[in-house]
């Protein structure tokens, strides 16, 4: 009797132990810089967890400007998360090149159907392997205040001259035409990225990448010169107007136009739900010529090469590459997902997707952000001076080219 009791207890202990193994939650740490998207990510993750019992994904977001520092410190100390939200292009390579990420080519079959340009942003140039599932693309475009335009009887301008005329009309009405200033350097590059392509044309990117031409090309210099025509219409004392001030000018309906990225859509709606705004593709150089937008991949989801839960992490990466996830991301976060088959339902996102049909890569980020001094650094350093009238567009172009030529063979 006693023996049977002991056996019974032992047996139950063994069963309990086994079941605890079976029911054990595999925890995946997922790090990102998207602090503003925590709730939406958690909702999407909850649905994944419901379909995949036993997997517990913990989403943690860090402030964007410190994310790089936090992530790289953790990775070098061998303590990074299982799933890593990485940026694209050069910034992505700083993590992928030293081997911190798991190659995903064979592990995430869906990647094959992704648009080439999107996958390129998460491909390590030295080995051609894809290390992250592309998550969203961004487009540089023009925002305008619909109410102000209606009130002044303005229609969205199609050409550069119409654009300047509209700006003049807003100015005459006592409002600030264009909210942008030049105090935040990366926003200056955005200004160039949004408005210059329609002037330098669709072929310029490939020609400059192959070294057929460089930035001293008249097409690029000419585009920079055109940008100087904006000066009377930018925010007053624009040299001192930073990104946040520019956003506020547009949000508070003090300015009629804001030039920026598609990431503002969700932000503007959130900050001022009453703001009646719309978007348009940057104006064409002249009537009949194409209205090009700058396009870039914002980042991707990578798997830590040292994760102890590789299988589960890869499973989650496959979910992140699925149409189901892409659609949720597009619908809840107002981001354009590059997952094939995803169709935006939002009217503004539909427009963005439409603009993307006439897109050229955001030139410095996609092409020249792999080595120091990056094209972005060189350009951003000089643009405030150019807008202030201290250096000429020719000088900006020449110095930028020389800076890149230091390491970029096609320019030498």
């Amino acid at each position, binding site marked *: 009797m006693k023996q049977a009791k002991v056996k019974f207890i032992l047996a139950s202990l063994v069963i309990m132990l086994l079941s605890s193994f079976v029911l054990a939650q595999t925890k995946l740490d997922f790090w990102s810089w998207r602090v503003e998207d925590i709730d939406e990510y958690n909702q999407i993750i909850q649905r994944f967890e419901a379909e995949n019992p036993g997997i517990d994904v913990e989403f943690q977001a860090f402030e*964007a*400007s410190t*994310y*790089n*520092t936090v992530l*790289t410190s953790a*990775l*070098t100390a061998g303590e990074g998360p299982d799933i890593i939200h990485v*940026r694209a292009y*050069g*910034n992505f*390579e*700083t*993590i*992928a*090149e*030293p*081997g*911190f990420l798991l190659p995903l080519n064979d592990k995430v079959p869906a990647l094959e159907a992704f648009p080439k340009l999107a996958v390129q942003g998460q491909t390590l140039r030295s080995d051609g392997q894809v290390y992250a599932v592309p998550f969203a693309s961004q487009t540089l475009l023009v925002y305008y205040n619909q109410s102000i335009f209606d009130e002044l009887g303005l229609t969205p301008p199609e050409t550069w001259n119409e654009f300047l005329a509209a700006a003049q009309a807003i100015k005459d009405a006592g409002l600030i035409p264009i909210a942008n*200033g*030049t*105090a*935040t*350097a*990366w926003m200056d*590059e955005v200004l160039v990225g949004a408005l210059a392509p329609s002037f330098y044309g669709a072929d310029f990117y490939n020609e400059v990448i192959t070294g057929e031409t460089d930035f001293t090309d008249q097409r690029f210099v000419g585009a920079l010169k055109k940008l100087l025509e904006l000066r009377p219409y930018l*925010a*007053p*004392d*624009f*040299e*001192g*107007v930073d990104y946040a*001030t520019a956003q506020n*000018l547009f949000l508070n309906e003090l300015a009629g136009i804001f030039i920026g990225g598609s990431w503002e859509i969700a932000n503007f709606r959130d900050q001022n739900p009453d703001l009646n705004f719309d978007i348009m593709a940057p104006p064409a150089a002249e009537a009949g010529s194409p209205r090009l937008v700058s396009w870039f991949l914002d980042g991707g989801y990578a798997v830590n090469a040292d994760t102890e839960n590789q299988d589960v992490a890869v499973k989650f990466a496959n979910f992140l590459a699925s149409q189901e996830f892409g659609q949720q991301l597009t619908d809840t976060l107002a981001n354009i997902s590059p997952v094939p088959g995803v169709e935006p339902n939002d009217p503004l996102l539909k427009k963005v997707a439409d603009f993307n049909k006439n897109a050229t890569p955001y030139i410095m980020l996609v092409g020249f*952000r*792999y*080595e*120091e*001094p*990056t094209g*972005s*650094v*060189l350009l*951003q*350093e*000089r*643009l*405030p*001076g150019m807008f*202030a009238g*201290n250096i000429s567009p020719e000088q900006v172009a020449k110095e930028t080219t020389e*800076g890149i030529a*230091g390491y970029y063979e096609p320019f030498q």
Partner: protein
Amino acid sequence: MGIQRQTTNKESSRFTLPYRSRRILWLATLLVPPLLFFLTFVVYPMVTALIYSLYEWEGIGRVGFAGLENFRKLLFDQPFQGWTLNAFWHNVIVFVTLMIVQNGVALLLALLLGNDPWGTRFYQVVFFLPVTLALVLVGFQWRLFLNPLIGIVNRFFDVVGLEALSQPWLGQASTALFALIIVNAWRWVGFPTIVFLAAIRSIPYEYFEAARLDGANEWHVARHVTWPLIAPAVTIIVILTFIGSFNWFDLPYVMAGVDGPPGRATDVLGLYFYRTAFGEVSGGIQDFGRGSALAVLMFLFILLVSTFWTRILRSREVELS
């Protein structure tokens, strides 16, 4: 004392260690924690930075021994050399201007308060108040104050009829660094004031009295009695201002940004280091090697110059005996 110690020794020798060993053990217990702290948080990062600076880095991965290549790049290769010199020059400007504006004003205030005018305590508190505020808060507030559209600084100039002074202070290459230095001086002026004031107050009153009896005026008293006798305080303030100026990071980071806008007009070594080691999110690529090399150069420069300077200044101090 001696008898007591003997008794303790006698009693304890049976059970415990002799007095000398116990004393050593006791000292060790007190010294080890701070020593460990110092080794972990000061020596270890310094040694790692030195090692990192000797390697070539690909992104955040260390690839191969590079010798002094990172240092060579920073000092002799364009555009790095240009950035290094530009940032260094700005640190020099910061130091010199702070010495004149911040410490000069502080000395003046201390001399005025040293005479114990009416309301001394009140002014002391007023001058010191900004020092107690969080620097991030000060930077953020002043950034708003200096905003060309909504800031109170330009509003003020407009109201008093000085429209010409209504400028985008932080957005112009010619004024941005100067604006940051003034804010820094506003924040810190209370500290040297208090140090100088304490030094002035420690001077025996008879010295002033003797000088005045000999017919010295206020300027003579300040120049020939007060100044030499507060020399030790001046040494401390000069050295602290020097170290602070060359490590300057937080205020320009909060008020201007990591890229030293506009167009590197506010770039200083601290920002340049941060940008190099951790990358500009919106433009640059990080390089631990070059970043560490820069940190090593900054450390050596500050160490050597401040040691040298302390010696010179100390030798000129007049000891108050």
